[in-house]
C-alpha cells in the first residue's frame, strides 16, 4: 500500500532531518511514499472560524489530489497533520464549508472528505505494526531513556483528531519501545510548548518549555522526541540550559533501522 506523502514547508527547509529520516525509514520498511510535486503549504494553523474558506483551500487541494490517486494522505509534521485532519473533517461534516470550498475550487468531482489522513506514527502502528517494526530494528536503542513530547497539535481536540488518548497518550511510547528504547512517561508531555507565540513572548515560551523539560527530567528522561519542527525549535532553544537533546522521532527510527548514515555502525546521537 502506497501513501500520498505530504511533507509540508518546514520539512523541506529547517527540518530536513525529519523528512529524510522518515523517507529512508519508510523505504527500509517497504512502505512506498509518493510525494506530489505540486503540494502547497497547508497554512500551518487550522482556521477555526467557519467563514474562513480561502485559508482552507491549499489543504483541500492536497486532500483531493490524494483522493485522485486513491491513496491515504500521509503527514509527519504535527501542524500539517492537525490542519489536514481537521479540514478534511470539515469537508465531511460542515455543509457550508464544503459547498463554498467546492464552488471555489470547481473540481471535476466535488471533494467531500473521502481521503483518509494518516500520521506517520499511525502508519508505523497500523500499516507496519510495532511488532513488525521491532523485528526490523537492527540497532536497538537499548538503555536509552527517552521521553515523548506530543505537544498539542497531534492530540487536540481529540474528538476531531482521533489520534490517541488526549491526556494519557501512548503511541510514541509504544514506538520508542519498538525501537528498543525505554520510554519515559511524564505529565507535561501533552502541554503546550508555546507554539507560534515564540516571536512575541519569548519569556512565556521559555517558561512553558522549561516546565516540559523539567518534568521530563524529573522522570529520568535523557532525551526527548517530537514530531513537530516548531516544538523542537522551542524546546531546543529553551533547553540548552537543561542539557536535554530533542530529536525528531524519525531520526531515532532511522538510527534504529540503520539507515541514517552510510556506514552501518550505529552512531550515538550527540547530546
Amino acid at each position, binding site marked *: 500500500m502506497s501513501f500520498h506523502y505530504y511533507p509540508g514547508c*518546514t520539512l523541506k527547509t529547517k527540518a530536513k532531518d525529519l523528512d529524510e529520516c522518515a523517507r529512508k525509514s519508510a523505504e527500509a520498511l517497504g512502505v512506498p511514499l509518493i510525494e506530489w510535486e505540486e503540494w502547497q503549504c497547508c497554512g500551518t494553523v487550522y482556521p477555526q472560524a467557519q467563514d474562513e474558506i480561502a485559508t482552507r483551500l491549499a489543504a483541500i487541494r492536497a486532500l483531493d489530489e490524494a483522493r485522485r490517486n486513491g491513496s491515504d494522505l500521509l503527514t509527519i509534521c504535527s501542524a500539517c497533520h492537525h490542519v489536514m485532519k481537521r479540514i478534511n473533517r470539515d469537508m465531511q461534516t460542515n455543509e457550508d464549508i464544503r459547498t463554498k470550498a467546492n464552488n471555489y475550487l470547481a473540481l471535476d468531482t466535488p471533494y467531500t472528505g473521502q481521503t483518509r489522513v494518516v500520521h506517520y506514527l499511525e502508519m508505523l502502528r497500523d500499516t507496519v505494526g510495532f511488532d513488525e517494526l521491532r523485528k526490523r530494528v537492527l540497532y536497538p536503542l537499548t538503555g536509552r531513556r527517552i521521553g515523548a513530547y506530543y505537544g498539542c497539535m497531534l492530540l487536540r481536540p481529540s474528538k476531531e483528531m482521533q489520534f490517541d488518548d488526549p491526556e494519557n497518550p501512548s503511541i510514541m511510547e509504544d514506538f520508542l519501545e519498538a525501537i528498543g528504547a525505554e520510554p519515559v512517561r511524564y505529565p507535561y508531555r501533552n502541554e*503546550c510548548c508555546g507554539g507560534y*507565540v515564540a516571536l512575541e513572548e519569548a519569556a512565556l515560551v521559555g517558561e512553558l518549555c522549561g516546565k516540559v523539560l523539567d518534568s521530563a527530567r524529573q522522570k529520568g528522561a535523557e532525551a526527548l522526541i517530537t514530531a513537530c519542527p516548531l516544538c523542537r525549535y522551542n524546546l531546543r532553544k529553551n533547553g540548552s540550559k537543561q542539557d536535554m537533546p530533542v530529536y525528531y522521532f524519525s531520526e531515532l527510527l532511522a538510527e534504529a533501522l540503520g539507515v541514517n548514515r552510510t556506514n552501518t555502525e550505529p552512531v550515538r546521537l550527540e547530546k
Partner: protein
Amino acid sequence: MSPVRSEPAEIVTEMSGVNPRKCMRCGKCSATCPSFSKIDIPPHRFVMMVENGEIEALLSSQLLWKCLSCFACVERCPRGVEPSKLVEAVRLLQIRGQGKNYRTPDDVPQFVEADEEIPQQLITSTLRKYSK
C-alpha cells in the same frame, strides 16, 4: 450572509459556531490556559463577555495575541464550549479591519535575522494568526 449587518456578538458566535450560553462558569478553561500569566482577560471571562455582547472591549484584549491555540481549553471544557474558537473569531474581527494587522510580512526579516534557526512554520503561523 444577510445584507443586514448583525450585532458583533452575533457575528462572533456565527463565525465561531460556538454557543457561549453553554458555559456554566466552571473556569476550567482558565485553569488550564498556559498563557494565563500574560493575558488581561481570562478565557472564562472572554466567553462570558461574548455572551454579554461586550465585543468592543474584547477587540483590544491581549488574549487575542497571546492565545497559543493549544486547544487545552477546548479539550477540557466540560460543556463543549470551545473558547479558543471564540478567541479566533474576535481576533479575525479585529484583523479583518483595515490597517489592523498585528504583524505584517514586513516584520519577517527582523525575525529571521534575529535567529536563523527559526522554522518556516513559525513565521507562517504568526502571519496566519496575526494578519489578513
